[in-house]
């Protein structure tokens, strides 16, 4: 079936109509629909996005997370980021799911998209977000005894700490580790 592109505003309308108040702050960002939703609604939202004939976001693009604790001056929390795509309507939906940084838990999407399994495992080890209901939430990349969650902003990259920056012009800069 040839894909027919839907205008961004039209897409936004459709998403709003289908999701109602489960989608918080829907907006258009670079031609893609951005919505936020609470963790408890995530599975429902994803299912609606997948099954609604006007949206049919059947293509699971990715699931990840963003640690916004150092974003801007005051910093924000931790969020799970899901991107779904509709090949039929050429429509992108970014779902931002804010989770509690102290005890991050998010329901699993594996029941909606099979492909979510690996993405959730990766997100868990990288951000420490637990996906409740995931059948096999083991490490994907890191060794089992790895400590810490590398993609959190609090995790500093050791390789840049142990070596002195050779680009420093004076000792002060070198001590600061360069950048």
């Amino acid at each position: 079936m040839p894909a027919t592109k839907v205008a961004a505003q039209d897409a936004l309308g459709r998403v709003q109509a289908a999701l109602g108040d489960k989608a918080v702050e829907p907006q258009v960002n670079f031609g893609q629909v951005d919505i936020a939703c609470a963790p408890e609604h995530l599975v429902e939202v994803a299912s609606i996005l997948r099954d609604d004939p006007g949206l049919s976001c059947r293509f699971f693009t990715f699931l990840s997370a963003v640690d916004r604790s150092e974003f801007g001056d005051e910093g924000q929390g931790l969020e799970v980021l899901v991107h779904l795509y509709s090949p039929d309507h050429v429509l992108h939906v970014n779902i931002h799911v804010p989770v509690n940084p102290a005890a991050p838990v998010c329901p699993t999407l594996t029941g909606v998209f099979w492909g979510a399994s690996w993405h959730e495992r990766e997100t868990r080890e990288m951000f420490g977000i637990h996906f409740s209901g995931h059948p096999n939430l083991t490490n994907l990349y890191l060794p089992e005894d790895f400590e810490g969650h590398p993609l959190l902003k609090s995790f500093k990259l050791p390789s840049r700490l142990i070596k002195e920056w050779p680009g420093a012009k004076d000792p002060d800069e070198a001590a600061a580790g360069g950048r």
Partner: protein
Amino acid sequence: MAVAPGVRDASEVAEEISSGRLVTEEMLLNVGPQHPATHGVFRLLATIDGEKLVDAEPVIGYMHRGYEKLVEQRDYRQITNLVSRMDWLSNIQNELPLAMAVESLMEIEVPPRAQYLRVIMCELNRILNHLMFFASFGAELGAITPTFYAFREREDIQMAMEAATGGRMHFGFFRPGGLKEDVPRGFIAQALKGVRQVIDRLPDYENLLLGNEIFKQRTIGVGVLEKEVAYSYGVSGPIARGSGIDFDVRKDEPYLVYDQFDFQVSTAPNGDCFDRFWVLVHEVVESAKIVEQAFEGLPSGPVMGKVPRVVQAPVGEIYVRSENSLGELGMYLISDGDRRPYRLKIRTPSYNNVSALGHVLRDTFVSDMIAILGSFFFVLGDIDR
């Protein structure tokens, strides 16, 4: 008959076999991390019952380099050279979404010549990549010759790319705003020569592999990936198109100047190894068509847009995707206004594609496993990042 303790009498065993009571044990076969068919460090935990594969679980992570963390420490030009190493068969295409993301956030106009050259290089890279998989798929099925032929064809294109970028594998040529520099004299002739050679000799190779009855026996009906499964796993690229999904970012959301070229999206409906391979081979021809058209319409002018001395993307978020050789390569860039990205989520095609592997491999033969692995065209660096 005296039998050692613990050892059953032969007649007993015979009776068990005839009555169907014989309990056989499944064997766990560890394919990889070092195995010729996995072309990379990739492990497949296969449970086999004789020649039958009962279950298979792909295990990855042996090459994880933590790109998403590394890029947070580097500025955009350094990242260009870093992401180039992600998928080492379609390097220059890896650089594209990053450049496009930064350009979009910064609202940089890319000069048309740069856009055309980007298209050309991406398509040349696609040809290189597909020839490589043409070679390796043959080798995995036991036909060693396609490897050598494909590498010979790659050479001219490879040399053209090297003349332009200075690198044989890691090109590092795209910059936010355009290209590093213009291509040297002779690039067009060399690249066109290479592309035409490929096209001229492709029928030979089809005779060698695609038309071969043994090859057909090995691939037709083997490793069927259904359309809905492909969607659910987010499978894209030649593999999705081999399952009858008409999905190509170049057509759906044309970036660069792809909307100016006449090309087709090759699809095949059956979703088996043969169809995936068929799509791969025919994409080479489509890429060649694009290259020829792009060279013909190549405008003159600068190759770098107006970019400030310090590239600092303004605060914002954007998801940019492009059609990599193996599928949709997307980058979700979050910038907090620094020289470095705040977060760069890299969605690589091979990662999603390979996650579907466990599903496809169930209930096949051990020999089919190799064919399926070969037809899933993945690059380990792309999976592990």
